């Protein structure tokens, strides 16, 4: 399910690690958002440069292609923390307590195994494009202005590694929830209660209203 979900926090070690990782994830997601913003600016520069100065951005398309992985991957773990990757929760939503946490544990365990394989595969993809002996260490380049592609390819195993850390943490947290049978375990995405939702929304809308008045 998309949308917002709460991740409960407390003073435990698990929660401290969760928050530390969340800090990194948020920064990476912000990088992704800034990359979108950057592409927007690049287009503005490209259009004005072409029409006013007859100087288009050289390799405009190449720059977009090497920027896309920033946008596509940097937010992947941030999205996993808040439980925002799409899924069908009709069945799992009917489960209660330990059964639910066990089902979630099973799901994140399998995801973790898959992601570890994908780290291997995407690393190999990067490694084929990288060569210490080559100029710019490059064994793969873009079509037009021949930008080295290895930095963009390296982003994939990097982002997947952060995701793997998040999944390890969720395996731990769900595992703990299975053991303790907690109703609202920490460090995993939980649906917000109506009151929390309303509070969150009020902060959004009031920010908007203040701004509108200004």
């Amino acid at each position: 399910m998309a949308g917002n979900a709460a991740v409960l926090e407390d003073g435990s070690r698990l929660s401290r690690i969760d928050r530390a990782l969340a800090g990194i994830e948020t920064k990476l997601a912000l990088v992704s958002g800034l990359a979108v913003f950057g592409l927007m600016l690049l287009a503005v520069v490209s259009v004005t440069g072409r029409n006013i100065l007859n100087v288009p951005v050289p390799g405009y398309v190449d720059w977009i292609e090497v920027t896309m992985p920033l946008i596509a991957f940097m937010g992947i773990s941030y999205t996993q923390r808040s439980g925002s990757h799409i899924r069908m929760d009709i069945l799992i939503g009917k489960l209660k307590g330990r059964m639910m946490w066990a089902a979630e544990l099973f799901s994140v365990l399998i995801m973790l195994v898959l992601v570890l394989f994908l780290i291997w595969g995407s690393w190999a993809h990067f490694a084929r494009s990288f060569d210490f002996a080559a100029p710019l260490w490059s064994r793969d380049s873009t079509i037009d202005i021949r930008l080295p592609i290895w930095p963009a390819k390296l982003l994939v195993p990097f982002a997947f590694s952060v995701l793997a850390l998040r999944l390890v943490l969720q395996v731990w947290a769900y595992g703990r929830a299975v053991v303790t049978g907690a109703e609202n375990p920490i460090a995993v995405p939980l649906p917000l209660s109506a009151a929390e939702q309303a509070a969150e929304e009020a902060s959004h809308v009031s920010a908007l209203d203040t701004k509108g008045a200004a």
Partner: protein
Amino acid sequence: MEPIDIGIIVSGVMLLFVVLGMRVAFAAALAGFVGLTWIFWAKFGYNPDKFMKALTISVKTAGQVPHAKVSSQALSLIPTFILIGYLAYYAGLTKALFEAAKRWAGWMPGGMAVATVFATAGFSAVSGASVATSAVFARIAIPEMQAMGYNKRFAAGVVAAAGTLASLIPPSAILVIYAIIVEQDVGKLLLAGFIPGAFSAIVYVSLIVGMAMIWPSYGPKITGYTWREKFASLPPAFPIFFVVGIIIFFIYNPFGDPWGTPTEGGALGAFVVFLMAVIQGMRWGQLKDALLETAKLSAMIFTIVWGVLIYVRFLGFAQLPSAFADWISGLEQSPMLTLIFILLAYAVLGMFMDAIGMLLLTLPVVYPAVMALNGGEGVLAADSAFGMSGPMCAIWFGILVVKMAEFCLITPPIGLNCFVVAGVRDDLTVQDVFRGVMPFFFADAATIGLLIAFPQIVLYLPSLA
């Protein structure tokens, strides 16, 4: 075991994992990865000594898909279209539109719901993502409708359904995805969505008015706005037309040559909305919010894109697409009947899949079959089965398929728009929203029927360009 059998078994297991609640993107990627390993190992005769080799080939084949598939310029339109939507929210455009629609359309039966549809249609002209549009209007419109005494399920259904307009009315992320998969002109496709999008909005409004006339408790009207108040609501909403103008002129300029490519138009539109948001008082805190929301939705969409494409890569090795194309083109029945069956299959598939995943998964197989049904890519209108040339058929089918994909955003059990509305408003469960949105199934069915019967609705604008 034949590759095709492996394909069918693995696909079944994937559906099982999806139903069990695994994140869709990862379930698809897992199925693709397992399937690839199986196929390569089968090629080695299931020799135990060669299992590691098969696994290595599979890991490396799957591992190159994420980077290779997202590094495309056309896909860059998607995050841009998402960003523009969030910025428009912070620029106050959403509220302004909603206010104007309320004052001008509120007098109708079901007035607030009608206003919601019109405001959403207007917002769709700057927003490229249905899900984002539903999320934004769930925040603004549902509380107001509830305060007016509207049935809360109905209110949620209106927002979930109206959100789908964002994907027909340009800009549209999903039309871009269609254009990429079938390698057609993005600009013409975006243009083609305009009239069917407006048409869908009118069908929704008719449905709401009809329902409110039969069951007045569903949606009381709102009256009492003076003409002065009505006109006062217009200027704040006006900038939206400016932005729409920019995007349109980059795609299609009725007075001459377009001003640039669709990619540039989308980005420039976003930039103008950004400037407006800054003028409206947006500061770093809110921009950061918008960027993070954009990042989250982009990560969600792109994860589905590469996850499903790992699975599609496996299908390629299993040779399923060509088997299907052969089967379709071998059918002995009228092409129109086949087309209708294909669209019905999308409706069924769409119940279980999300829109983008469904298009990525099916179009490589279905699109060539549909083009062949019409008489081929280069067929002239006179010789074709559907009475339109090859390129026009590509556009028409694109709009039909996107409308079907939008339909599946509101159908249970996986209906993303409904999930988002329920996610934003936690006093609503997903089941509530699905119930509320049900009447709109009939509206969408009627719209699709009319688009099939009168292709001119779709093809009028692109035939001018």
